[in-house]
C-alpha cells in the first residue's frame, strides 16, 4: 500500500487544492476523546493529522503545547498507549494519514527498530522529530528504508539557507517549513524574509511545501499562499480545543472554516 501521506498529498496536488494539517496533543482530553476528535477531523476533510506524543522536555514547543504535553503525561499517556489508540482507529476504518510529532528520546528509548515496526503495525504514516536534524538522522534512517515504513518529514527553517538542498534531498511526503525562528505557538510573527525563504525551498524540491508555526487562521497564510501547498496549525488548535473543553463540533467547524477560507483565496 502506498504511504497514506504521500498518497493524500499527491491527490490534492492533482486537484490543485491546498493541504491542511492539524496538530493534537495525544491523550487529550483522554485517549477515547482523542479518537473521537481524530474521526471528527477526518470527516471535516483534514489532509493529515499530526499527533504530538507528550514528552517531559519539549524544547521545541512554546507554552501551549508544553502545558498540554504536561497534562497528558500526568494522565498517563505514553507512546505505547497512543500506538494502541491508532491501531484501534485503523481497525475501525480510519483512513486519515497520521503523523507522530515526537522528540528523539522517545524513539530512542523505545528502540529504533521496534519503534519503526510499531509504526507499521499500527498504521502511523510519518514522523516529525524536531530535535533530529539531517546530520543526526543516519541511525534512524537505516530502519526507514522498508517500503511500508513511515516517512521522516524534513523541517526547514528561515535560517537554513544553504542547507536547504542538503535537507530536501531524498525527502518524502512533504517539506515542513517553519514560519519563524524559535518554538511553536508564537502567533503570527513570521520571519522577515519569509517569502524569499519559501521560494528558495520551492525551487529545490518537487515535494509539497507546507508551512507551520504561529498560524491561527487561513488569513495568516494569505501573503504567501502562492508559495506554499498548505498550512499546519498546532498551538492555536490545541488552545481552541482546551478552551472549548475538547468539543468535537468546535474542532470540526474550525477545520471546515479554515479550509473554506484557504480555498476562497486560491
Amino acid at each position, binding site marked *: 500500500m502506498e504511504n497514506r501521506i504521500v498518497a493524500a498529498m499527491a491527490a490534492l496536488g492533482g486537484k490543485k487544492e491546498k493541504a491542511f494539517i492539524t496538530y493534537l496533543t495525544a491523550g487529550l482530553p483522554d485517549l477515547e476523546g482523542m479518537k473521537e476528535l481524530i474521526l471528527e477531523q477526518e470527516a471535516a476533510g483534514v489532509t493529515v493529522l499530526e499527533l504530538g506524543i507528550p514528552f517531559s522536555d519539549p524544547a521545541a514547543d512554546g507554552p501551549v503545547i508544553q502545558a498540554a504535553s504536561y497534562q497528558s503525561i500526568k494522565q498517563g499517556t505514553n507512546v505505547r498507549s497512543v500506538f494502541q489508540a491508532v491501531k484501534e482507529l485503523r481497525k475501525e476504518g480510519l483512513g486519515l494519514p497520521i503523523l507522530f510529532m515526537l522528540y528523539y528520546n522517545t524513539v530512542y528509548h523505545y528502540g529504533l527498530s521496534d519503534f519503526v515496526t510499531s509504526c507499521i503495525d499500527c498504521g502511523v504514516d510519518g514522523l516529525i522529530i524536531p530535535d533530529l536534524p*539531517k546530520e543526526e538522522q543516519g541511525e534512524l534512517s537505516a530502519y526507514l528504508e522498508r517500503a511500508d515504513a513511515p516517512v521522516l518529514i524534513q523541517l526547514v527553517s528561515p535560517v537554513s539557507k544553504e542547507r536547504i538542498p542538503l535537507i530536501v534531498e531524498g525527502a518524502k511526503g512533504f517539506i515542513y517549513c517553519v514560519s519563524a525562528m524559535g518554538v511553536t505557538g508564537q502567533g503570527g510573527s513570521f520571519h522577515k524574509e519569509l517569502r524569499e525563504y519559501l521560494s528558495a525551498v520551492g525551487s529545490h524540491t518537487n515535494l509539497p511545501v507546507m508551512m507551520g508555526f504561529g498560524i491561527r487562521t487561513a488569513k495568516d497564510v494569505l501573503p504567501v499562499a502562492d508559495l506554499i501547498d498548505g498550512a499546519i496549525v498546532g498551538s492555536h488548535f490545541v488552545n481552541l480545543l482546551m478552551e472549548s473543553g475538547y468539543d468535537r463540533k468546535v474542532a470540526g467547524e474550525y477545520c471546515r472554516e479554515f479550509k473554506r477560507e484557504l480555498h476562497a483565496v486560491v
Partner: protein
Amino acid sequence: MSEPYYGEYGGQFVSESLMNILQELEVAFHAAITDTDFLKEYHYYLKQYVGRPVPLYHANRLSEAYGTKIYLKREDLNHTGAHKINNVIGQILLAKRMGKKKVIAETGAGQHGVATATGAALFGMECTVFMGAEDMKRQALNVFRMEMLGAKVVQVTSGSNTLKDATNEALRTWAKYAEDTFYVIGSAVGPHPYPRMVKEFQRIISVEAKQQILEQEGRLPDVVMACVGGGSNSIGMFAEFLEERVRLIGVEAAGFGIDTGKHASAMALGKPGILHGMKSYLLQDFDGNVALAHSISAGLDYPGVGPEHAYLKDSGRVTYACVTDEEAMAALTELCRLEGIIPAIESAHALAYAKKYAKEMTAEQVMVVCLSGRGDKDVHTVAEYFREK
C-alpha cells in the same frame, strides 16, 4: 573542525533553526583558540580579573584525618567563587569576537548565572539568565547577586522547575533569537561544539594543577578527583591528566541514596538518551521521559551528564562513583573544621568520596581534589539541613 561525537555520545540534537548557528559557532571557536591574540586576552582576564593562578593547597590536617596526602585545587578562590567564571570569560570573549551583543545563560545553583552576569557587566553586554523557580528559592542570594550585576533573571516554571527546565527555556529562547544572541552554556553539556568548548575553557584548572603538583611533589598525583553534575569542573580537572598514568575519579550525587530513586547519578543508573542537544547517559522513566534528579546540591541536580564523561566511563579511563547528601554534608563540615574552608556542597561531594577512597591509599600517596567552589551560597541550605536533622 572537530568531531561532534565522543564515541557514540555527543552530537547535535537540536532544531534545524540552530544548525547554522552551531556551525558558525564552531568556526569562530576554532579560529579563536588558535589565535594568539585571543588567547592572550583570555589569559589576561584570567590573571588580572579572575585572580588566577589559584593555589594548589596541601590540606595538612585533612590529609592527616583521611590518611593520604590531599591537595585542594582552590577554584573557590576565583572571582565570583567558583570555576564557572573560567568558561564564562572564554565564551563571552568569543561572543564579543562574533559581534553578539546579548548573552543568555541557564543556571542551577546560580554560580554560572552569577559568573555570566559578571562577564556581561565586564564587557558591557545585555544578559538574561534562566533559572528554575525551585532553584530561585534555594539560591535566593545568587538571584540577588545577578540582579545587582545588571542581569535579568527569568523564573522558569515548567517541568520540575530546576536546571533541566531552565536549560530547555534557554534553548527555546536561543532558537528564537540566535541571530543576535550568544548562549553561554555553563557545563560540559549541550550540542557540539559546547562540550568541547567548555572543556577548553576549563582546561586551565589542570594546566595549573599539573604544574603546581610537579613543583610541590616533584611528581604527578596518584589520584585526581572532582564532582560531576554536567561535568565542567571535572572535565577541566581531568583534561591534562587524561594521557598520564593518574587515576581519575568523578563523583556524582547520590541524593538520598541510589536505591531510593531520588538521586542525580546519571552514570550509575542512567541509560543513553537524548536531552539538551546531546546523546549521553540520562536518567529516564519507563516511558522515556526524563526522570527528576535529586540532590541537596542545586549544581549537581541534573539528570544528564556531559557526553565526554559518558565516553570516559565506557572506555574505563575515568571511574565514576557517587556519594549521598548525608556523606557530602559530613565532608563539608569536616573541611570547615579541619581547614577553615567552607566548600560548596557540590565540591563537598568530591571531598566525601576522597575520604572513602583515601582508605585504599597510603600516607605517602598523593590525591588532588578539585574544590570547585566556595560555600557561601549554601549557608542557608546547610543551616536548614542541620536544623532538620
